[in-house]
């Protein structure tokens, strides 16, 4: 009996110790760390991407509930530069889609009523576009904490003694307080909007370039547009369900396509592999939003917003300047409906 107990106890102790070590080091950013956000709020700091990891869902919900949110934007990584006043939250995140938006709407309280800016991407309706896991189940987290590969990477990370002693540290990054581990190349504000390292220190983090259209859809924009043959009906249904929820809660929703730099808009409108689906998407969205009593603002042409090519560093995401113009345009759309958008600020 003693040897059986020894076997079981030692196994449990070893796995437990490894899991605790992996939880502390968290080399792949899979563990949700709410105390980082508490500390960031207290000290008015940005939070580095590595501390949020892949837990965007938890982060964005934390943003929503820790602010007196009355208006928010949802969408892909292309809405992440949009920000507003103290009652505005940015709940967009990389890898979102109609399903995640539906789930987010379901999970948010019906009251107080909200004004929602909903950035809808064309590529969401390409069935080949898959949504990465940004909300891990408890089982997935346990699996991650017990995995040998996690432990191996955690040991490598732990060679940096700072990480071993503290799960994060506070640094001064050109006068900006940041909570981080190794680098601050991407950070998050506590309203949910994203800050690129080059916006704070372009010498340390050079502004990125690239993203030009080479004709290869497998590599262009992460392959999001590859093999796009029709509008995915299940995604359209999910978006409709989300709109239905918003309607039932008397929320105000403004749908919009995130702006495209002029050259890329031309590609989307004319490339024979994309044009039909792209135009079908732009044709369907106003009808869909109107069906539920909402507005669709056509903001797809960045040039019409006053954005120039330089406002799209990777020819995909718009920068803060262009995003401000986008917010003003959406505010105007709401004003046209005689809605009051004081919440956006």
């Amino acid at each position, binding site marked *: *009996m*003693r*040897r*059986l107990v*020894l*076997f*079981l106890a*030692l*196994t449990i102790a*070893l*796995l437990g110790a*490894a899991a605790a070590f992996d939880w502390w080091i968290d080399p792949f950013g899979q563990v949700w760390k709410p105390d980082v956000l508490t500390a960031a709020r207290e000290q008015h700091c940005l939070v580095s991407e590595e501390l949020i990891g892949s837990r965007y869902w938890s982060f964005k919900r934390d943003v929503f509930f820790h602010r007196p949110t009355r208006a928010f934007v949802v969408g892909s990584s292309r809405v992440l530069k949009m920000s507003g006043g103290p009652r505005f939250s940015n709940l967009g995140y990389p890898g979102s889609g109609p399903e995640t938006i539906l789930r987010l709407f379901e999970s948010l309280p019906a009251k107080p009523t909200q004004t929602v800016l909903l950035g809808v991407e064309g590529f969401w309706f390409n069935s080949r576009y898959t949504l990465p896991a940004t909300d891990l189940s408890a*089982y997935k987290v*346990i*699996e*991650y904490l*017990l*995995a*040998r*590969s*996690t*432990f191996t990477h955690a040991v490598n990370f732990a060679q940096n003694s700072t990480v071993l002693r503290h799960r994060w540290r506070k640094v001064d990054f050109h006068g900006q307080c940041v909570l981080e581990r190794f680098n601050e190349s991407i950070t998050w504000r506590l309203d949910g909007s994203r800050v690129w390292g080059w916006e704070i220190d372009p010498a340390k983090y050079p502004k990125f370039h690239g993203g030009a259209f080479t004709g290869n859809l497998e590599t262009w924009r992460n392959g999001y547009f590859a093999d796009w043959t029709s509008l995915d009906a299940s995604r359209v249904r999910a978006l409709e369900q989300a709109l239905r929820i918003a309607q039932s809660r008397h929320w105000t929703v403004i749908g919009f396509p995130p702006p495209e730099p002029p050259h890329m808009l031309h590609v989307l409108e004319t490339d024979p592999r994309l044009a039909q689906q792209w135009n079908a998407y732009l044709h369907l969205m106003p009808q869909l939003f109107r069906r539920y009593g909402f507005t669709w603002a056509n903001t797809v042409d960045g040039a019409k917003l006053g954005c120039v090519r330089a406002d799209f560093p990777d020819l995909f995401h718009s920068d803060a300047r262009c995003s401000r113009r986008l917010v003003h345009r959406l505010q105007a759309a709401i004003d046209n409906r005689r809605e009051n958008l004081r919440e956006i600020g």
Partner: protein
Amino acid sequence: MLFNSFPFLLAFLPVVAVAYFALPHHRLRLVLVVGASYYFYAYAEWWFPALMAGSTAISYTTGRLLERSPRKAVLAAGIVGCLGLLAYFKYAAFAGGYALDFVHVVTGRSLPHFRTVLNGIVLPIGISFYTFEGISYMVDVYRGTLRAERDLLRYAFFISFFPHLIAGPIVRYGILQPQLTVKHRFDADRVRSGLLLFTLGLAKKVLLADGIAAYVDRYLSSPGELGFVTAWSAAVGFGFQIYFDFSAYSDMALGLARIFGIELPWNFDRPYRSASPTEFWRRWHVTLSTWLRDYLYIPLGGNRKGEARRNLNLFLTMALGGLWHGAALNFAAWGTYHGVLLAGTHEARERGLRLPRPLAVAVTFVLVVLGWVLFRMRTVDGIGSLYAGMFGLHGFGGGIPGHLLLYIVISFALVFGLPEEWRWPVERWRVVWVAAAAVLFAVAVSSVYTAHPFIYFRF
């Protein structure tokens, strides 16, 4: 559910084992294990248990009928019933595909609807194993070597017991029946012994078989590019991969069953030490080879009707054994190849041809590895390319696959230096060895996150 998965290791096994010994009554324990086994099976597909229940009902009812009236027609009906399920789920797409090709050639009609239906048939894991178990039971009752089981619960336990459900060993009811009539008290030594054997199997699977698989899969994905050394390394590597993979599963099955007080028959005994193909099949997947011998080869006439008939029986038995592994021509070719090897061994022995044992072991190993090419590569192109590489037709360059060779050296050392794991005296291990096994178990458990499924799950 896989043995090498977190749901099994962290939830299913601890819960079922604790509940098993917590239940005071023997029949309640049987109910628990049968229920748990059906849940274990349903984890793959919700409807799989219905199929297993159907197969169980057929063989159980046939057994009862045979007890009253041991007629061949009753036996045949039972066998056809069980084999019918296997034939539909495993071979309909294979045979139907060829039939449709034939129709297409003759009539020019491609009949896409039928092809879609055939391609939609899902192979239920484990069906090959429990079908053979049911058949052996019915035949044994018919032969009068086994009394029919009247207790449906015990019979359901025999078919569904989760340690051997998915990939064997193929158990005969005569072995299990006496163990199901007694209540197994909690015995810490036996539970520990089962856990240690399970640990050895799990470690062999996730650390050795999966480690080798990473390199073998990479090389064999482009067999046309393999030079002499790499081609042989990949083929030998696969030989060790499949051996460690399958024997690991068997070790784990034996260990798990032992935890519950059940001893299952062993399946492997260092087959690469064999000095002839005949000996190889006495050491490799023994519960299948003895099943084929007792329920196919001997009924076909075995060696009682002359050499030519014996050789024919060997080809047939092994070809069907090959097809049992998978509904594809390469498996039939692999089985037939082994039939030829077995017939050749008999012929050589009758002519007094003998090799010194070390040389015979080496020759047997090479012959078996050449056979694995047929097993592993599913297409004629792939088989041809790998053989071409192994015979130097792609040149002798192409670099040395260092990591794979290291695995192969370790594998040889293990195979020739130590006995098969189920022979290790784990029940007598002292504290230091038990502690070392706990460390090994923790490492193995942490490795299941990236583990491959067992190769024999497909069969």
